């Protein structure tokens, strides 16, 4: 049985210092077992300026068992699956303790964004890129932040749709947009010339 009284207290405490931490946790519905966490991308990283949403589901044994956390916002990071958003972090597994909270766990996730551990990867492709071609990694991570983690990134889907409607394959549109840093006109130029 989830200790809902405790979850309630956690939510209160978290909203109290939202100004200082920038960390937000709110219930998805009336059911406190499913929550959404929000963390700002750390300054000085390719995630800066982005707002990342994390799906949280609490197991029956919470707080004895760790909360399940998964990025809902797509993110390019060695310890986060670029496909599923799964996070590789010890405190979400065997290093969890009831002394931790949803807020401290989200702070750790935020710290993970600042300090990737490519030797213990969740996403092997990203980790390889991080180790072998760091500049490209930074570029891709920044692009993903621009595309998926910013309010204006809603526009990207529209751009994709617009270009796809012109008859270009959607996958090609996406990769081209990615390659030119999200500029619609440059992408169109490239698509036409390619």
């Amino acid at each position, binding site marked *: 049985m989830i200790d809902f009284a405790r979850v309630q207290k956690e939510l209160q405490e978290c909203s109290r210092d939202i100004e200082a931490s920038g960390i937000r946790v709110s219930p998805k519905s009336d059911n406190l077992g499913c929550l959404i966490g929000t963390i700002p991308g750390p300054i000085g990283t390719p995630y800066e300026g982005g707002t990342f949403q994390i799906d949280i589901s609490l197991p029956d044994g919470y707080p*004895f068992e*760790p909360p399940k956390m998964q990025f809902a916002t797509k993110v390019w990071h060695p310890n986060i699956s670029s496909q*599923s958003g799964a996070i*590789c972090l010890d405190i*979400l597994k065997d290093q969890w303790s009831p002394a*931790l909270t949803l807020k401290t766990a989200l702070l750790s996730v935020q710290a993970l964004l600042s300090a990737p551990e490519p030797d213990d990867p969740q996403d092997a492709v990203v980790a390889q890129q991080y180790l072998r071609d760091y500049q490209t990694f930074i570029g891709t991570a920044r692009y993903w932040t621009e595309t998926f983690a910013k309010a204006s990134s809603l526009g990207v889907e529209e751009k994709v749709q617009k270009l796809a409607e012109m008859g270009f394959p959607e996958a090609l549109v996406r990769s081209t947009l990615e390659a030119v840093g999200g500029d619609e006109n440059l992408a169109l130029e490239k698509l036409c010339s390619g």
Partner: protein
Amino acid sequence: MRNQEGPQADEESEAATSIPTSELDDWANFGDDDIMQQQSAIRAEEAVKTLFVGDKEPLSTLAAEYQSGSPILLEKIKVLGEKYAAIRRTRGDGNCFFRSFMFSYLEHILESQDREEVDRVKANVEQCRKTLQSLGYADFTFEDFFALFLEQLDSVLQGNETSISQQDEILLRSRDQSISDYVVMFFRFVTSGEIRKRSEFFEPFITGLTNATVEQFCKSSVEPMGEESDHVHITALSDALGVPIRVVYLDRSSCDSGGVSVNHHDFVPAVGDLPNASGSSETVTPFITLLYRPGHYDILYQK
């Protein structure tokens, strides 16, 4: 083998088809969930074998365990038998020290009805609460665990509304996960708080064990459930609550003089801010005696 449709291959293919091939292709899918699931499966398996806290057994059952084993151990168990009558086993889930301590302590209070001791421990518990607050722990992270432990203390003293009079009842509670785990976690908080409060004292012991800082050690080896305890944990808990603990060591070490002896170590709580006066005090006889075999603690009963 490859033909999964074939009726012959039914048996072999069952295992393979139970995992969708797409998952096999993607190692990223073997993530936290799978690891957690495996862990809980292992725990469930262990749970069937041993209760959190077992029944009292005569010491002879310990000897039976080593019948075909090391002669030194058998010899030592014989020596143990001169002073100790019985053993109570605990589950080997990494929380055995804390669970042994919980049961032994509550059992002692139930039998002795020592109100002075309870008042003393309660005062120490309040001190621990302040320690955690000053270390920056949010109240809601530990208050439930504290409340549940204090409830257990009250219930073993007679004359309260919620009193229990039977040892069986402590046993039931120690075996009830919703109580037992909460008390274990209470001890983990107390232990962690004490170590961090006196980090200068504990630092050399911790750096001897791992490369971690005191804070890292507490986060990774004290506060998570299932992390095993050693002398650092025992010293800290004994000091924080002011409860002496005797640990009797049963291992294969022997002395050159030929004779076999069983070593024990008394953890005697510090007074005030003085470090734990381990073993130096002859006047204090701990009422809690634990049997340590490498990696595990059980409860011992004197004759």
